[in-house]
């Protein structure tokens, strides 16, 4: 039954999400093109050639790219929320809740599909930003060195690149590049599902209100986020003192332990929200 629920949830959501991915692809091309104006090459070569209309278009395109990226992410969040609300708690809920499935199966299928879409969009957004930055670095590299391809340089100097990545992840997580990357992947995957659970949990709590379900959902989301923030802050306080005492050696290990604590807090709150949502669906729900 869970497989069927996941299949139909995927079918119901893929069209709009593919649309968002297509928009993201278009934005990425726009972001890359925005660096093709003479402004950037001149700036990297320290040439003062004035500011032309083409340069303005490039800058505007870049601004539009970043606004668009936020738009895509918020578009997904709003879509996931509205779809979950409609499917579970509006008139469509009459069909959803009379399927021969348990409330756990209904919830898990929605969280799974929502989490996967959020994860896919997040990864694609990071990839998009990476491509745009890489295209900018490529132009910078060509302008400064006169060589054709940054990619060729990277492939020829893999050891140096790995060393740089090790330093980056080392400063972030106190790990080597591979371990840091795996940790990053793990927290990103977990974060996607935690976010979707928080969103769906808040919408479900909102159903307890007789008249102002949407408002109650928004307030619930804000309150849950505040609770998360307060707990994370209280837990982090002693570690912050530690950072001040021994800033250099303590920073990396503190960052990772704070990060782990944050992951744990999110995990515990999400599990709690899951069971609260299940309780509301099975015991308190009254579809209009």
């Amino acid at each position, binding site marked *: *039954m869970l497989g*069927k629920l996941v*299949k*139909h949830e995927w079918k119901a959501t893929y069209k709009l999400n593919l649309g968002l991915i297509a928009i993201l692809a278009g934005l990425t091309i726009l972001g890359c093109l925005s660096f093709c104006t003479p402004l950037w090459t001149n700036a990297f070569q320290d040439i003062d050639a004035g500011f032309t209309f083409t340069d303005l278009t490039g800058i505007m395109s870049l601004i539009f790219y970043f606004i668009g990226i936020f738009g895509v992410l918020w578009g997904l969040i709003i879509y996931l929320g509205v779809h979950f609300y409609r499917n579970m708690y509006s008139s469509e809920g*009459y069909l959803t809740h*009379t399927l021969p499935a348990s409330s756990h199966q209904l919830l898990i299928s929605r969280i799974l599909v929502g989490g996967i879409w959020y994860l896919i969009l997040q990864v694609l957004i990071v990839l998009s930003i990476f491509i745009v930055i890489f295209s900018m670095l490529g132009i910078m590299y060509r302008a400064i060195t006169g060589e054709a391809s940054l990619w060729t340089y990277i492939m020829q100097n893999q050891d140096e690149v790995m060393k740089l990545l090790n330093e980056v992840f080392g400063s972030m997580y106190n790990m080597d590049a591979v371990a840091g990357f795996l940790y990053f992947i793990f927290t990103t995957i977990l974060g996607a599902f935690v976010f979707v659970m928080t969103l769906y949990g808040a919408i479900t709590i909102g159903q307890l209100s007789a008249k102002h379900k949407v408002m109650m959902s928004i307030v619930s989301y804000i309150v849950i986020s505040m609770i998360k923030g307060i707990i994370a802050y209280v837990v982090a306080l002693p570690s912050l003192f530690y950072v001040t005492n021994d800033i250099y050696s303590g920073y990396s290990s503190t960052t990772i332990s704070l990060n782990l604590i944050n992951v744990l807090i999110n995990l515990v709150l999400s599990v709690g929200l899951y069971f609260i949502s299940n309780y509301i669906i099975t015991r308190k*729900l009254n*579809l209009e």
Partner: protein
Amino acid sequence: MNDLVEIVGLSKAYDERTTAINNMTLTLPRGRIIGLLGPNGSGKTTLIKMLNGLLVPTQGSIKINGFYPGPETKAKVAYLPDRTYLNNAQCVSELLDYYNDFYADFSRDRAGEMLTGLNIDPTSKMKTLSKGTKEKVQLILVMSRSADLYILDEPIAGVDPAARDYILRTIITNYSPEATILLATHLIGDIESVLDEVIFLRYGQLVLYNSVDNIRMQHGKSVDAYFREVFAC
């Protein structure tokens, strides 16, 4: 296990002042078409929601086929709510796939025949259909199941008289003699001819559960006329 539905001491209170169903005990047999009748606010929809597992009783219990409302009963109860509940973005054939996937007792062939009979194109999107056609699609989906219990909440309220005849014909010709149909409506005159038994509800309490023939014999009038007498304002 001859009885299909067993309701014992059932109550539902939304808050301290609003009791929608009050200490109801009732047993529904198999193989009947039963009218669930009562004025607005009598508790019909609350009872239907509880039978479908959409509401939890405050007190008492419901058993269908020996099971409390849950996945086991939902697999054998075909429910038509009093509203449009299908996804408007889907086309009719996608909805057939949906029902076919989730309900083991769904017959795609039977649904296809009914759609053809009503000239409804399976490739049409729900949002392009009129309100009446949407209701027909919903009824076709529900009546294409070989369920033990059909619960139809106001199935003829929003459609024209010609469509009403079709819907009633569909209901009568598409359920097995072992199944029971519970039909809630205000339009008693239109459905009286198909009913075997009726339940009268008032203020969440069972006023009467009797066969249509008995009512006619005992009171010398139609169910519609008797209903108007019992619930006269």
